């Protein structure tokens, strides 16, 4: 099925819904956005792409009224505004799906979706009309394909399910412009398909869409126009007919990307890490058996909530295992805390960067050295020089875009933050690396760098388990692919069996052979 040709672009509508001219925003040391001018027509799907830190989220935050631009003007329906506020943004029909999840896990799904816009009962007391609320939420949940009900507490939803709630929330606004800031970064295939069809239906209703994604093929499929940012500046616009993967990449990074390195054919090493009948908290009734070998990248695919993250947490000692054994180099080991795992050279790059990966308030250097301090210190005393040197080495190696290693990590873009997490582990000597969605929210250039790093690690003999919901990535990077279905390994694919279909079939619980 080819979706790329079924969207005719509407012929030049009269006035743009929203028009930015010369908009800029400066942070200390960084020009996040510079002199940006852009028109958004009704019913237009704009793909917004750019490397990490290019300024995409900054632009969106300006439109959402969350931050105020330093310069430039905004024309909304022809009326000039200095800046937007959150209220004026919402009331003029700008809806958001944020890059970082912004849900309240102490409230239920319905409350989250209509927060700030609850239907009220008659009377002066502003009481919530809970029945109407439920009725309003149901069709939205159906539209995004959610299987949970309106009064499910958000706390019990997985990350992907939470993202669905976010999308439903954006749809619930009587929107004229819906902005998706990397909505698919934690959505697996089936849900992503549904999202793309939602975008098309929005467009059909005359609603404008801004779609930010690092998965360029998705952008390719839905966008009428692609806007490319680089270092806060608009470097090019691609009309419908010019949109193509290579064109986008060229504008984004200013050069053509070398073709992905072919996987070397070589025999994998011995088994590094083995799960034998391991039971995780999410699926205590389903034992998992899995072997990861030195020198290979084992991809781990699966649908939302198939239990991949849980498995990674057990390997890393964050969760306890409810049965079975973990073997390293053939020896049964007990990992009862992350400390044990780290001591054995088993490292995890977690899925939720902000919560588990880094300390936003710490300088880059201190984040990088945090796990390796015992080695960088002498008799428990810190050594600033050794720390800086070690961090600087990693900064250069991973090309982390920052003024210096003493920059606060929180000011970096998502991709560069992810690199800091990687740097933390790469500075030590990993034996087994577990990557949970390693390129979530990371631009294509950085993505390739990370793939390169993973491959180099594997070549150096490290065993790698890569959890990913990005089909391209799983197939393109892995040496073998294990597919999880409802907490169990449904099957393992060798390289010659790789295909989107075979992964998907296993993921939904069908046998391939």
């Amino acid at each position, binding site marked *: 099925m080819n979706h790329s040709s079924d969207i005719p672009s509407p012929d030049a509508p009269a006035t743009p819904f929203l028009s930015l001219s010369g908009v800029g925003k400066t942070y200390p040391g960084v020009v996040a956005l510079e002199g940006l001018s852009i028109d958004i027509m009704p019913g237009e799907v704009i793909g917004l792409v750019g490397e990490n830190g290019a300024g995409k989220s900054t632009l969106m935050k300006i439109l959402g009224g969350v931050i105020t631009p330093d310069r430039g003007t905004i024309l909304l329906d022809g009326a000039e505004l200095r800046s937007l506020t959150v209220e004026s943004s919402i009331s003029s029909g700008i809806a*958001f799906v944020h890059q970082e999840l912004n849900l*309240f896990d102490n*409230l239920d799904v319905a409350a989250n979706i209509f*927060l*700030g816009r609850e239907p009220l009962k008659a009377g002066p007391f502003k009481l919530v009309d809970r029945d109407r609320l439920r009725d309003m939420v149901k069709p939205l949940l159906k539209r995004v394909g959610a299987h949970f009900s309106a009064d499910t507490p958000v706390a019990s939803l997985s990350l992907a399910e939470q993202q669905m709630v976010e999308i439903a929330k954006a749809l619930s606004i009587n929107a004229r412009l819906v902005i998706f800031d990397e909505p698919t970064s934690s959505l697996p295939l089936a849900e992503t398909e549904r999202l793309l069809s939602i975008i098309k239906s929005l467009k059909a209703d005359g609603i404008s869409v801004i779609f930010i994604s690092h998965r360029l093929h998705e952008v390719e499929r839905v966008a009428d126009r692609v806007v490319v940012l680089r270092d806060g500046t608009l470097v090019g616009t691609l009309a419908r007919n010019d949109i193509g993967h290579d064109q986008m990449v060229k504008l984004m990074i200013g050069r053509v990307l070398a073709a992905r390195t072919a996987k070397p054919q070589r025999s994998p090493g011995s088994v590094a890490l083995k799960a034998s*009948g391991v039971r995780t908290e999410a699926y*205590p*009734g389903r034992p998992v058996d899995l072997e990861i070998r030195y020198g290979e990248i084992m991809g781990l695919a699966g649908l939302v909530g198939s239990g991949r993250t849980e498995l990674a947490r057990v390997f890393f000692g964050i969760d306890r295992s*409810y049965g079975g054994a973990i073997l390293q180099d053939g020896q049964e080991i007990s990992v009862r805390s992350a400390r044990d795992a780290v001591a054995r050279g088993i490292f995890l790059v977690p899925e939720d960067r902000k919560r588990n990966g880094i300390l936003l308030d710490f300088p880059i250097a201190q984040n990088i050295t945090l796990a390796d301090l015992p080695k960088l210190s002498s008799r428990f005393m810190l050594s600033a020089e050794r720390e800086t040197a070690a961090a600087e080495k990693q900064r250069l190696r991973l090309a982390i875009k920052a003024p210096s290693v003493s920059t606060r990590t929180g000011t970096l873009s998502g991709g560069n933050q992810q690199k800091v997490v990687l740097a933390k582990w790469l500075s030590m000597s990993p034996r087994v690396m577990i990557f949970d969605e390693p390129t979530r929210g990371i631009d294509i250039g950085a993505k390739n760098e990370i793939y390169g790093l993973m491959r180099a690690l594997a070549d150096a003999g490290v065993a790698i388990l890569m959890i990913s919901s990005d089909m391209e990535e799983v197939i393109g990077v892995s040496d073998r692919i294990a597919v999880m279905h409802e907490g*169990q390994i449904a099957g393992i694919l060798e390289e010659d069996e790789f295909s989107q279909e075979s992964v998907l079939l296993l993921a939904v619980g069908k046998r391939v052979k």
Partner: protein
Amino acid sequence: MVKKDLGLLLLIVVVGIVVAIINPRFLLPINLANTANLIGLFGILSIGQAFVIITGGIELSVGSLVALLGVLFVDFIAVQDMSWMLALPLILALGAVIGAVHGWLITRLNLQPFVVTLCGLLIYRGAARFYTADGTAGFAFGQNFPDLEFLTAGRFYGVPNTFIALVIIAVVMWIMLHRSVFGRYLYAIGKNEEAARYSGIRTGRMVMSAYVICGLLTALSAIYFAMYTRSISPASHGQFYELYAIAAAVLGGFSLRGGEGSIVGVVLGTVLLQELQNLVNLLGIPSSLNFAVMGGVILIGVLIDQQWHAIRAKRRLVSAARHTETRHSNEGSLPVAANQD
């Protein structure tokens, strides 16, 4: 949430039964009425505190405010000869203003609630003491305000009016917190203030309202306390009342991290605390142990609550395991799944 409240209620009843068996006088109407009166006084205070705690804040100046506002109220009506019909709204307004100032410092100037209200604790206590030059504010012998006294210290068919006031306030506040948009916003803010702001909620204004409500309810209970003791030595009056209020909220299932708790819970928490105080006196336990009993019960309460959660989570896991296993064996597939517990 409801389950937690039920557990607390059960504890209250069990403790009550045990006390009643040891000393049947516990159940005398007069004793129940006396205790209900104090439940009313402290309950109003605790509900105010609860509103602040929901937002993830804390209000430490409550005890000092009870002293300051009490001193002012008594002074206004007993010394300055102000009509109580005027003094009462004046004090309530003052409480609201102080709450608003706290809220303003916290939301606009970004100070931490703990710091702001700690300073409040010190400043208001000092102000109260300075106002009376460390003397006692009280009514002269025979100085009576029948209407006011009926409202604040009287009984209605044997039920103390303070308790009735608590019930009314609790119902209103329950609707406000659990059924109105405002309450929902407070929960959202308590969980994640930034995200709430992104949803278009005027978080500053909401948090400020919570402090205003707390100030208002504190002022009201300050008046009740003043009319109950009828005499206020500003150096000690109301000391540690903020801790009572916080303890009641915590017992009632509130999280000091914000975003969790219910009005029913905080009221039940107050009831339990007052029952304990009553118990110490009725069972002739040395009054030096009063505090220790309170502390012990709170600790045990949160421990049970915590363990309860942990056990339930575990049981859910086990039953989930069993469930999936039977499903598997029915399906007859994957024999690996059937072994091991």
